[in-house]
């Protein structure tokens, strides 16, 4: 067991526990806090891989902005404990096995196709933040500019949706 492997296992366990907790918690605010645990663990994994800029964006945008939005909405709507309702028979008996099957299918396909990929670790200059910004503002400059339109449309949509009709 090397150092990075131990860190990976701890962070991976944290992420999976947070995801399971997201599903099992019945109050939305507890689910939101579990999701924040998952996101922070994933940011740690990005740091472990050497993707420091993505890790910072993950913390700031996902863990900060998006989750604050979720918590605001939960508190604004005064969301209470989730009601229990009867599942359909199909969901009760076939739901979990099918979900496990699809995760297994994805995992099997991944393992089969990535057999020749050896290790993921800090590659230094190859994917540094400088390199990333070069890619983003040269090769991907048109998609980058298009995202500004996307965000503008999202802002307009949120304003139109949230205003009260008179």
């Amino acid at each position: 067991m090397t150092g990075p492997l131990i860190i990976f296992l701890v962070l991976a366990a944290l992420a999976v526990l947070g995801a399971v907790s997201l599903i099992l918690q019945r109050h939305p605010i507890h689910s939101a806090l579990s999701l924040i645990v998952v996101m922070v663990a994933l940011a740690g994994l990005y740091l472990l891989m050497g993707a420091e800029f993505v890790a910072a964006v993950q913390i700031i945008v996902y863990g900060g902005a998006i989750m604050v939005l979720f918590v605001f909405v939960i508190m604004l709507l005064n969301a209470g404990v989730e009601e229990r309702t009867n599942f359909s028979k199909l969901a009760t008996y076939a739901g979990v096995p099918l979900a496990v099957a699809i995760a297994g299918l994805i995992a099997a396909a991944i393992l089969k196709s990535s057999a020749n990929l050896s290790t993921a670790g800090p590659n230094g200059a190859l994917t540094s933040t400088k390199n990333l910004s070069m890619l983003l503002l040269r090769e991907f400059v048109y998609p980058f500019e298009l995202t500004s339109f996307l965000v503008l449309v999202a802002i307009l949509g949120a304003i139109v949706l949230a205003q009260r009709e008179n």
Partner: protein
Amino acid sequence: MVPTNYYLLLSAILFGLGIVGFVFKRNIIAIFMAIELMLNAVNLAFVAFSQALGKGDGEVFVLFVIVVAAAEATVGLGIIILTARNRRSLNVERVDLLKL
């Protein structure tokens, strides 16, 4: 060094848990959070491949995914507020008609 496969396996597990949450949760906000979990799982796979191949493209895609997720969260939560205001419930089983 951690093998890339470990990251990809973790990504598949998180995506599966996201699907389970999406199917089994009844609260519309919790369903939305399960979607965010699936997006995060895909991001992990992108970064793992990007690092394994030594190219930055995957990380650029992750940045785009995060921007799209932010836009999706604003519009989606706006719609959730509207439905909750009109139906007085966050349970998706109560939202089964397009028109009130």
